[in-house]
C-alpha cells in the first residue's frame, strides 16, 4: 500500500466510486407517493392549522360574548327592578297625606306652580330632607324656568317642583325618598346649572351615604360605583384575534392573544396599565425582509429564501397609558398608547428556498428566548361598559407598530386586532 501515500486523492476517489455497498431494495413506491403528495399539495400544511386557529378564536369569542351577554342581562334586570322600586316608592309618597315640604329648608322649597302643583308630595320634617325628584332622562326636565330656578317634571307623579340650587345647602340635606338617580351627562348645560359640577355631586353622594343610613343597598352600590371608578387598582383578562403582516403584506393570517392586565386609575380620566400576554402570531414575509445574520451558520450557504411563513409564540409585556375622553355614567370611550416588550418563546418558520437551482422547503424551529425591548408601539381606541359595581367589559381595537425586528429574521411585524376584556376594580 505504499502507493497510497503518493496519490491519495485519486485512490479515495476510486474507492468512493467502487466500494462494495449493498444497494438495498428499491423503494420507488414510497418515493413516487411522496412526489405525488408534494405535487398535489406543494404548500405547507398551513391552511389546516390556520383553520384550527380560527375555530379556537371563534369559540373563545363566542364564550366571551355569552359571558358578557349574561352580565349585561343581569345588569338590565337589576335596572328594571330599580325602576319598579322607584314607582312603588313614589306611590307611597303620593299616598302619604301628611307629608309636607319643609318650608324652612332654604334649598328647595315647595310652592304652588300651576295646576299640577299640590301638596301631595311633601317632605318629611322629621327626616329633615329635601325632595329630589327622580328622572330617567333629560326629557323629564323642564328647563324653561327663568330666574335661575328649575323644575323637575316628574311624569310619574305629575308634579313640578321649583327650586334654587345651592350647592352647600344640598350637602346639608338628605333625601326623604330612599332612592336617587345621577343626573344625565349634559344636564348642567341644558338646565343652566353651572355650579352643579361633578365634584360637588360626588360630595353630595358622600354626604348622602354618610347621613342617610336607610339608603337602599342597590343605590348605595351605584354611588360607590362612581367613586370606585375614579381611583384605584383594577385587574382584567383580555383576549382576542391578532392579524399580523410584514411590511407591505396583508393581514391575512389570524393569530391570537390572551392575558391578564393590571391597571391603576390616577383619576377618572387617566390610568396606567401593564400586564402579561401570551401572543401567537402568524405572518408571511418575502425572503428579502428576512435577515440571515442570526441563522447563517445553521443554513446551507448558497441558499436563498424566497418567502416564509412564521408561526411565533411570544410573551408580551405591555406598558401603556389610557385616557378616557368620553365618560358616561356606565360607559367610557378611551384611547391608549404605549410600548410592549416581547419575549419570543417559540418560532417556527416554514421557508420556501432555492438551493442549487432547486426549490425546496425547510422548516426552522427556534426555541431560544429572544428578547425585544421595546418591540412595538401600541395604539388603541376602546369602549368600556360597567356591568356591575366592580365589573366592566371592554372592547379595544388595537394597532401595534414595530419598533425593531422580531425573531431570528428580525422581521418588522405589524399587528392589528381586537381585544375583548373583563375588568374588575379591586380597591380605591
Amino acid at each position, binding site marked *: 500500500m505504499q502507493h497510497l501515500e503518493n496519490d491519495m486523492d485519486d485512490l479515495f476517489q476510486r474507492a468512493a466510486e467502487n466500494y*462494495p455497498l449493498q444497494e*438495498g431494495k428499491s423503494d420507488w413506491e414510497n418515493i*413516487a407517493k411522496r*412526489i405525488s403528495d408534494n*405535487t398535489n399539495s406543494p404548500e405547507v400544511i398551513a391552511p389546516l392549522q390556520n383553520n384550527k386557529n380560527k375555530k379556537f378564536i371563534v369559540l373563545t369569542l363566542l364564550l366571551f360574548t355569552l359571558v358578557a351577554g349574561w352580565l349585561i342581562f343581569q345588569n338590565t334586570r337589576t335596572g328594571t327592578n330599580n325602576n319598579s322600586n322607584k314607582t312603588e316608592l313614589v306611590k307611597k309618597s303620593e299616598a302619604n297625606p301628611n307629608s309636607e315640604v319643609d318650608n324652612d329648608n332654604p334649598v328647595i322649597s315647595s310652592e304652588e306652580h300651576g295646576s299640577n302643583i299640590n301638596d301631595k308630595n311633601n317632605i318629611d320634617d322629621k327626616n329633615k330632607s329635601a325632595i329630589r325628584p327622580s328622572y330617567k332622562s333629560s326629557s323629564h326636565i323642564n328647563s324653561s324656568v327663568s330666574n335661575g330656578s328649575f323644575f323637575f317634571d316628574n311624569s310619574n307623579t305629575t308634579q313640578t317642583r321649583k327650586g334654587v340650587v345651592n350647592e352647600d345647602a344640598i350637602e346639608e340635606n338628605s333625601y326623604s325618598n330612599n332612592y336617587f338617580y345621577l343626573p344625565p351627562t349634559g344636564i348642567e348645560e341644558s338646565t343652566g346649572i353651572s355650579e352643579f359640577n361633578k365634584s360637588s355631586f360626588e360630595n353630595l353622594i358622600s354626604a348622602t351615604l354618610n347621613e342617610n343610613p336607610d339608603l337602599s343597598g342597590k343605590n348605595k352600590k351605584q354611588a360607590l360605583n362612581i367613586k370606585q371608578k375614579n381611583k384605584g387598582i383594577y385587574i382584567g383578562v383580555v383576549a382576542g384575534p391578532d392579524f399580523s403582516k410584514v411590511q407591505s403584506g396583508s393581514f391575512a393570517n389570524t393569530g391570537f392573544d390572551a392575558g391578564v392586565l393590571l391597571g391603576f386609575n390616577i383619576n377618572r380620566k387617566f390610568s396606567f396599565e401593564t400586564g402579561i400576554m401570551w401572543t401567537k402570531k402568524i405572518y408571511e414575509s418575502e425572503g428579502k425582509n428576512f435577515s440571515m445574520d442570526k441563522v447563517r451558520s445553521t443554513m446551507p450557504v448558497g441558499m436563498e429564501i424566497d418567502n416564509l411563513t412564521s408561526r411565533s409564540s411570544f410573551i408580551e409585556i405591555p406598558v401603556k397609558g389610557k385616557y378616557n375622553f368620553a365618560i358616561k355614567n356606565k360607559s367610557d370611550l378611551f384611547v391608549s398608547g404605549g410600548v410592549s416588550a416581547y419575549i419570543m418563546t417559540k418560532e417556527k418558520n416554514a421557508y420556501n428556498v432555492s438551493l442549487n*437551482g432547486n426549490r425546496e422547503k425547510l422548516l426552522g424551529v427556534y426555541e431560544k428566548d429572544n428578547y425585544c425591548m421595546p418591540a412595538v408601539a401600541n395604539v388603541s381606541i376602546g369602549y368600556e361598559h360597567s356591568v356591575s359595581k366592580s365589573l366592566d367589559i371592554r372592547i379595544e381595537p388595537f394597532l401595534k407598530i414595530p419598533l425593531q425586528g422580531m425573531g431570528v429574521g428580525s422581521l418588522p411585524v405589524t399587528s392589528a386586532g381586537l381585544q375583548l376584556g373583563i375588568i374588575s376594580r379591586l380597591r380605591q
Partner: protein
Amino acid sequence: MEKTLTIINGCRQRTHKYQKILYERYRAFALKTVFRYIYNYEEALEVSNDGFVKFFLGIEKFRCENEADIEKLLGGWIKRIMINTSIDLLRKKMLLPEIGGIPDYVWDIKDKSASADQMAIYKDLIQLVKKLPPAYRIVFNMHVIDGYTHIEIAETLGIPVGTSKSNLLRAKALMKKYLNQKEELSECSI
C-alpha cells in the same frame, strides 16, 4: 435503452415511468454518496430517498446545453443534492459521529476474485474515512473525493475558508497515519 434526455424530459412531465428508470439507474450511486457522509446504512437509505424526492420536484430547473455532457451534469447534480441533504441531516445531529463499526451486512462482496480483493481495499479505505473526526471527515469527503473547492466548502458548511483548509490538512495527516498503521499491520500478518 431509453436515452437520458428522453428520461429527463419524461421526469419533467412527472411521468412515473421515467422517474422510476432514472431512480433505478442512479440509486446505488446516490446511496454510496450519502453513506460516505452519514455512515449509517438505514439513515443513508432514508436520506437518499429524500434526495430523490427533492431531485424530482426540482428537475424543471435542470438545464443542459450540450447533450453530450448530460450524463456528467446529471450525475453531478444528483451528487450535489445528495451531499446537501446529507449535510442537512448531519447539521440536525450536530455533527455527532456515528458510534461503533460498520456492520458487515452493508457490504456487497460476493466472490473471492481479484476484483473482490480490490473491493475489499476500497471498503477498508472508506472505513478509514469514518475514523476521522466528523468535521475533518466532511471536509475530506467534499474536497478529496467530491472535488469541492475550499470556498465552496466554506459556503456550504458556513465556516471560514481557513478552517476548511486546516481541517483538510489535519484530515490528510491523520489519514496518512492510519494508512501507515494499516500497512504495518499488513506486513506483520504476512
